[in-house]
């Protein structure tokens, strides 16, 4: 059964992956290919890389960085930032991207969505929408201007679907980087408005935040930007937290039958049976288990 994807988003500024807080404050974290290597090793379902300097600097996604990222792990890649033409899309797909993501150009040149969908198939075309709640409704936020514009998020999302977008990448400006959890109202509204898959991001700071989304909305993918950098094997532990706390009856989507279909477990290094501390990170194992491990030998998995 198609499970929900746990996705890592790498916001790129000055050529490096950064933490983004409120679309304004950025903290340097690491190089893109190092992040991809480890996220892939930890079993992330997908990685979205957005270069937020590109459109302002008037250039497309840096091909060299795309190549480095694609070569660093065996994980589906969505590249976005400054992409304005079919030719650029073809180059990025050749470098190893599975999907490309349009933000500014989707608004300024909607025709590009349908043209690209026609050439490459809609499954490679993702439209990224940044939303902010202003006087009673969710409006589209233009990050290059630094403020919202007079377009309703739901209308714009439906419009993109009609134009042939394959997926929506939905970000909440207000929640970005606050670690207080996702904007569930926004997510529910957009997921109901369109029939194409929706990936949501903005505000993850604890595994329970992902849990809330899975329980209350029909998002196809739950993403986090800063959160996965915080501790070792963060992806595996978070997946286990979700698999442990998701009872089937909680689920909104009737088609999801068994628990296994929701979150794909990691194999071999799986963190099965662990408990969690109040930060949602793996808690200490009990003493007898640690004592029994003294004579265990675990070989490294080699395929």
């Amino acid at each position, binding site marked *: 059964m198609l499970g929900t994807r746990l996705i890592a988003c790498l916001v790129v500024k000055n050529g490096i992956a950064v933490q983004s807080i409120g679309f304004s404050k950025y903290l340097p974290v690491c190089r893109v290919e190092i992040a991809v290597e480890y996220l892939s090793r930890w079993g992330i379902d997908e990685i979205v890389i957005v270069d937020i300097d590109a459109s302002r600097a008037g250039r497309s996604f840096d091909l060299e960085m795309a190549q480095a990222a694609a070569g660093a792990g065996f994980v589906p890649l969505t590249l976005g930032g400054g992409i304005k033409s079919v030719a650029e899309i073809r180059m990025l797909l050749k470098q190893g991207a599975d999907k490309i993501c349009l933000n500014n150009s989707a608004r300024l040149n909607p025709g590009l969505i349908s043209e690209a969908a026609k050439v490459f198939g809609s499954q490679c075309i993702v439209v990224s929408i940044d939303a902010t709640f202003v006087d009673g409704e969710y409006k589209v936020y233009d990050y290059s201007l630094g403020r919202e514009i007079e377009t309703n998020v739901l209308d714009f999302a439906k419009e993109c679907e009609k134009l042939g977008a394959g997926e929506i990448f939905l970000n909440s400006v207000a929640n970005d980087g606050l670690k207080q959890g996702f904007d569930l109202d926004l997510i529910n509204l957009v997921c109901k408005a369109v029939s194409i898959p929706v990936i949501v991001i903005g505000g993850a700071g604890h595994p329970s935040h992902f849990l809330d989304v899975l329980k209350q909305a029909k998002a196809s993918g739950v993403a986090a930007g800063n959160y996965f950098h915080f501790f070792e094997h963060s992806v595996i532990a978070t997946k286990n937290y979700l698999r442990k706390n998701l009872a089937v009856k909680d689920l909104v989507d009737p088609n999801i039958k068994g628990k296994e279909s929701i979150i794909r477990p990691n194999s071999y290094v799986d963190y099965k049976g662990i408990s969690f501390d109040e930060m949602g990170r793996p808690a200490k194992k009990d003493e007898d288990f640690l004592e029994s491990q*003294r*004579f265990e*030998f675990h*070989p490294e998995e080699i395929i």
Partner: protein
Amino acid sequence: MKYCKKCVQPDTRPGIKFGEDGVCPACTHIVTIGTIDYDARRGELFELLEDYKKHNKLRQYDCIIGVSGGKDSTRQAMYVKEVLGLKPLLVCCSYPPEQLTETGADNMSNLIKLGFDAISVGPSPKTWKRLMRNGFFRFGNYAKSTEMALFASVPKLAIAYHIPLILWGENPATQFGNLAVGSLNWNGNGMRNSNTIRSGPDPLLDPDMKENEINWFRYPKPEEMDKANLQIVYLGYFWNDWNKITNGSFSVANGLEIRDGVSAHEGSLYPFDALDDDFSVLNQMIKHVKFGFGRLTEEASELIRAGKISREEGIELVKKYDGKCAQKYIDRFCEYLEISLDQFWEVVESYRDLKIWSKDENGKWGLEYNFD
């Protein structure tokens, strides 16, 4: 106190048994050395090493050796590397800084520079000092805890690092007649039963000491050793020229730093014993009080067995230097354990074996040497 007919070893060592012919186990063993086919034994050794490769899962190291940087461990480590062609992990149990000598530290550096990886295990100094104090007051032997740490640290790291093969030097039974280890061949798995460490650290403890403060003194249980497939092998069994003099000369030739070599101060003929711990001279003196023999008796016995000196010359040396210990060592020991000289002698005297010691006319203790 009966002496071995051939050498000068008395029968007062705990656990020693002389043959009917009045000869100590070491002398009976040395006789057989001439008849031992060392080439066959070497084949046996290589077979053993090959057999043990399958238990070694981590493959970082072929074996693990307990070392102090002294004469025996330097020669043994080089033998394992150069002759057996193995890559050993050295384990050095490092004394509290106050007890360790500069020479001891330099020698351990010297051994590492000869091309080895080493892990130094340093149990907490104050706790160790308290165990030494308890060992001294309760058993007249401060070194009980030291020996426990030296013996236990190696198998503990072997378990942790999944290195099943532990190579040891000489079998104490054949070298000193300490039969308690229960084996006269290469199998060293009975080492936990040797005299000083059989009791484990418990008799030395104070009530407030917790288990995680003394775990480096506790020897692994037999079932732990089995689960980890540990096998201790005495290399001495496979070696015909393993003895103090050759080991000493080899190590000095490879950079070993040694003592001044004044027998009257150190109660020994050779300047390369227990180089990392000055208190060992004092410990031999206490042993001399307890059992009537010290390090010099063992050295003289080895020389007699090696045919270097006659029994008469040995007896001469024993009477002259055995049990000697310079006052500076006693002062430093009292200062380290924070006890007075009177307390020190009060304890030592309480262990004097009156069956073998008697006071002469002007009140000086003397041994009744009946070497016949």
